[in-house]
């Protein structure tokens, strides 16, 4: 499914967070959204999830999900958002419980999702016994168990230590290769964006519009950290974000 964001404006009370934001997210691509902190990245994600309604403008999804899809949209959070009194398998089962599935099909989906994220051994462990990386694998399994057409990720790997983060990013790409969902990933990690995105969208300072879009033309298999194209891209992205932050700072000074 692709996502069409058309001239969206959204405010919290008098604070305008998004203003005339338009963006096309093509089907089956991973798009990373970057921008100065507090610019409205997570708000955009919540709007796509349908958790809030934009003040004006439209957000459309187009295309038909595959017949395996139980629910078109799934989400992964930075703080994992696991249910602490449910085991790993029970957490993964949660989004299945309101669907009319046979017990067999339910178990098949749970185990297949756990296998995909390599957590079958920990199926019966409780979240507080797991490392950050394992908790986020649980979060990913819970998202993938419904075979979503769109996967939203809100800083999915920020709370995970560096070594584990790289492993998870690689595993995430493997999961995408299998499922080919449309991924929308909010992040502040420029390196991460150049590793996992087909396309990088940079938002301006608040009120956020689309400032720049980069296509990352390097195939995933070639994305070493020191790849010259990626390094140049990272520099360009950092430069733009710095500009936005500085411009925001000047506006504040001018106002006071």
């Amino acid at each position, binding site marked *: 499914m692709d996502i069409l964001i058309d001239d969206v404006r959204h405010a919290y009370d008098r604070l305008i967070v998004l203003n005339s934001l338009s963006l096309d997210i093509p089907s089956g691509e991973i798009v990373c959204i970057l921008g100065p902190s507090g610019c409205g990245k997570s708000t955009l994600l*919540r709007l796509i*999830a*349908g*958790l809030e309604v934009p003040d004006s403008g439209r957000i459309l999804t187009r295309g038909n999900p595959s017949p395996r899809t139980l*629910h078109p*949209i*799934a*989400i992964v*959070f930075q*703080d994992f*958002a*696991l*249910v*602490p*009194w*449910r085991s790993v398998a029970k957490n993964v089962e*949660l*989004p299945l*419980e*309101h669907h009319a599935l046979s017990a067999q099909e339910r178990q098949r989906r749970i185990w297949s999702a756990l296998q995909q994220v390599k957590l079958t051994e920990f199926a019966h462990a*409780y979240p*507080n016994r797991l490392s950050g990386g394992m908790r986020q694998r649980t979060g990913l399994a*819970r998202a993938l168990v*419904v075979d979503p057409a769109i996967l*939203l990720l809100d800083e999915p790997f920020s709370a995970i230590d560096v070594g584990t983060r790289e492993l998870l990013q690689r595993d995430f790409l493997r999961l995408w290769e299998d499922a080919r969902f449309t991924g929308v990933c909010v992040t502040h990690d420029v390196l991460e964006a150049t590793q996992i995105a087909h396309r990088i969208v940079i938002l301006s300072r608040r009120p956020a519009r689309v400032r720049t879009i980069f296509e990352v033309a390097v195939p995933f298999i070639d994305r070493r950290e020191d790849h010259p194209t990626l390094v140049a891209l990272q520099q360009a992205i950092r430069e733009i974000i710095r500009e936005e932050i500085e411009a925001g700072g000047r506006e504040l000074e001018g106002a006071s």
Partner: protein
Amino acid sequence: MAGSSKVHPRTKTGSVDQRETRPDAEQVRYRGEFNSRPVPHLSLLTLAVVLALWWATTSVGTSAIGVPAPYEVMTAFGALARNGELLKHLGASLQRLFLGWVLGAVCGVGVGLAIGLSSWGRAIALPLVSALFPVPKVALLPLFILWFGIGEGAKVATIAAGVFSPMVFAAYSGASGVDRNVVRMAQTFGIPSSMIIWKVILPGTIPALLNGCRISCSIALILLTAAEMIGAQHGLGALVLASGNLMRTDQLFVGILILSILGVSVSGILSFLERILLHWR
């Protein structure tokens, strides 16, 4: 080996470090005085010492009116237990406690969840509950006596009123304290609201509810005693008051002892429930 214990253990491996023998080398001082560590048997010992002191002071020959000797309390306990009075008092108290607590808790949790889950509920009920909260519930007892008569109704209603507010706030804070992102996650997956309440929010309020139970049970015990001191034939409060009027401190102590045991038992039951319900912690 007492002498060698002063020597740094590393001398055994023959690798004395020059840095240790420098004149300005100094052992880091222990500053962790508040670290928690187990002190075995001290609690039991304290209890024994208190009992012994009690016994000692009463055996010197002070008047029995102030403080009865431990064996006098035991004798009074035996007598009350044998003639069935104790069971009558305890039974009456437990019944009031149970009815009042259940009534107050059910209403309180209901209102608290309504406040925590719905903006309407919050707008309607929160000001009322906040106004009721600071009123000492004993002050309502005379009112309840006028409404329900001096019998069981007034006592049960007073306990229920005291239990109500803490349970409202426990349920309210528990429900609104459930991780926002877990709720958002469930909503994103299209899980119906009723199921989110049943499977995510309600189980998430259990820790707060158990805390609320602790508070409301101790309030219930206070109100029970107070209510039973006004116009009750039986009950632990009535026993304590009547014993005081008759200067029967031995019986009075029995009443206090039973109230203490009651409180400790309730607390034990709640700890047990916590272990079972919150095993995932």
